[in-house]
């Protein structure tokens, strides 16, 4: 028997609104279609009426989880147009915030993955550890989300010696439980049975469809903006890019777990070698000069790109935001084919989707 099974836009297995139509034969999905656009807020349009500092506040609200990434990338674009040099200390503080954000985003996703798999106690353990990162971010910026750490030409808040020690200690304390978690996620039989050979995206497909970030790295594509096109002092730090070949949901869990370890490495290096000096170039409201810039940033979910067009006024002429989910979401139908309906929720969640980013 063949059925058409609709999932979403509001569904217990999904964090955010997406609609998927599954064409099934019995239990098996033969084909699938996805529909987006339930969360469109017209942020690109609003941005054309705002000045650079107001836009920083606006683009941070594109997404709750990767909020720093948006402000970071937008600021890089304006700095590229205006040819502003960011002080080294400011760059390091941006990197530290970005990596803390990556940590909390990956832990959040791993928790949700465990929850969907049905491993609720693991979900609670992971989110307990995530809460430590959230506390560090709160100490650093004053906020749990929307950190407002970026200004045009640097960072808004400094890291003093006490805070530096606190973050280092927090990261150090996290290492043991994180290693335990990685070990558990990699070796546990329950997780392996539920995720191995589920939702496979082959390497050829990942390249053809242009997948990015951890999703592509789980399919054996070695791509990372931090290494391919270093920005904001990322070339000062030593870190590995975990790549797994198998391309299933299990690979995505493993890649993200290993990336957490690498993020801690970067934070420690940055804090150990935090340069002296100013953190920004002063709080003057900049005019956005005439010109175009496209900048890329490795957000927790992959490559994030902003395009900013300036016209010599305070306001932007055009801001265009393009997020990793824009490239990863079209891979979902390819992954769903041949799997069972019971795994559909897990497969859709496995790209770490962010549809509020996607719809903007």
């Amino acid at each position, binding site marked *: 028997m063949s059925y058409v099974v609709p999932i979403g836009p509001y569904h217990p297995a999904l964090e955010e609104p997406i609609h998927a139509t599954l064409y099934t034969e019995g239990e098996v999905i033969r084909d699938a279609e996805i*529909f*987006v*656009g339930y969360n*469109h807020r017209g942020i690109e349009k609003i941005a054309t009426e705002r000045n650079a500092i107001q836009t920083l506040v606006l683009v941070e609200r594109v997404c709750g989880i990767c909020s720093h990434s948006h402000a970071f990338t937008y600021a*890089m674009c304006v700095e*590229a147009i205006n040819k502003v040099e960011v002080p080294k200390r400011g760059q390091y503080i941006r990197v530290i915030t970005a990596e803390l954000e990556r940590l909390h985003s990956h832990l959040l996703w791993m928790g949700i993955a465990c929850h969907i798999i049905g491993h609720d106690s693991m979900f609670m353990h992971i989110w307990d550890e995530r809460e430590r990162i959230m506390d560090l971010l709160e100490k650093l910026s004053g906020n749990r989300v929307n950190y407002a750490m970026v200004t045009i030409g640097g960072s808004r808040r400094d890291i003093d010696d006490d805070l530096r020690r606190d973050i280092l200690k927090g990261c150090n304390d996290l290492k043991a439980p994180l290693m335990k978690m990685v070990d558990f996620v990699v070796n546990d039989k329950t997780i392996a049975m539920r995720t191995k050979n589920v939702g496979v995206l082959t390497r050829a497909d990942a*390249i*053809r*469809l*242009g997948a990015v970030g951890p999703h592509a790295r789980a399919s054996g594509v070695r*791509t990372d903006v931090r290494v*391919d*096109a*270093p*920005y904001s002092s990322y070339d000062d730090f030593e870190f590995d890019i975990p790549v797994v070949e198998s391309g299933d949901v299990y690979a995505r869990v493993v890649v993200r777990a290993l990336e957490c370890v690498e993020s801690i490495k970067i934070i420690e290096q940055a804090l150990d070698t935090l340069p002296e000096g100013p953190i920004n170039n002063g709080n003057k409201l900049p005019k956005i000069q005439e010109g*175009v*810039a*496209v*900048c*890329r940033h490795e957000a927790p979910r992959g*490559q994030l*790109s902003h*395009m900013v*067009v300036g*016209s010599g006024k305070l306001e932007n*002429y*055009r801001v*265009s935001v*393009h997020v990793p989910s*824009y*490239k990863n979401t*079209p*891979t979902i139908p390819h992954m769903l084919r041949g799997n069972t309906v019971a795994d559909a929720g897990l497969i859709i969640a496995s790209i770490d989707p962010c549809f509020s980013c996607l*719809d903007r």
Partner: protein
Amino acid sequence: MQEYKRIEITKDQVVPIAEQMRKKEIYLVMIHGFLNKDGQPDISYEYAVGPVIESYHVVGESTVPSITEIYDTAAEWPERELNELFGWTFEGLDTSKRLFLPYDLMEDQGKGQIMVKPLSELRKLNGTEKEESK
């Protein structure tokens, strides 16, 4: 460091460049578009060549060939977005379905353009015009 290189091309060069880039396994970052100050469409194809973004701009054309055949969904979604939001035509692109806009826009308005009116005009239309404050 990241760099941005602007290159002007004509619309006949869009497909050959995309084919060349695909052969070299170069990543298509995005297809951006906006109306420039003269009101002309400015469509740009951004390729990530190492740390440099090579941006190929087609200016003044509201009809360009689609590169969906070459870059699959990495090009299809941006093209569909530009088609919906600006009304530009990508020759060879399947626009029978909606990406961001609601489906019920398809029937009477055809092209799928939402005519955005300023709030003041809407108030006039609805007869709920505010009294001007003195």
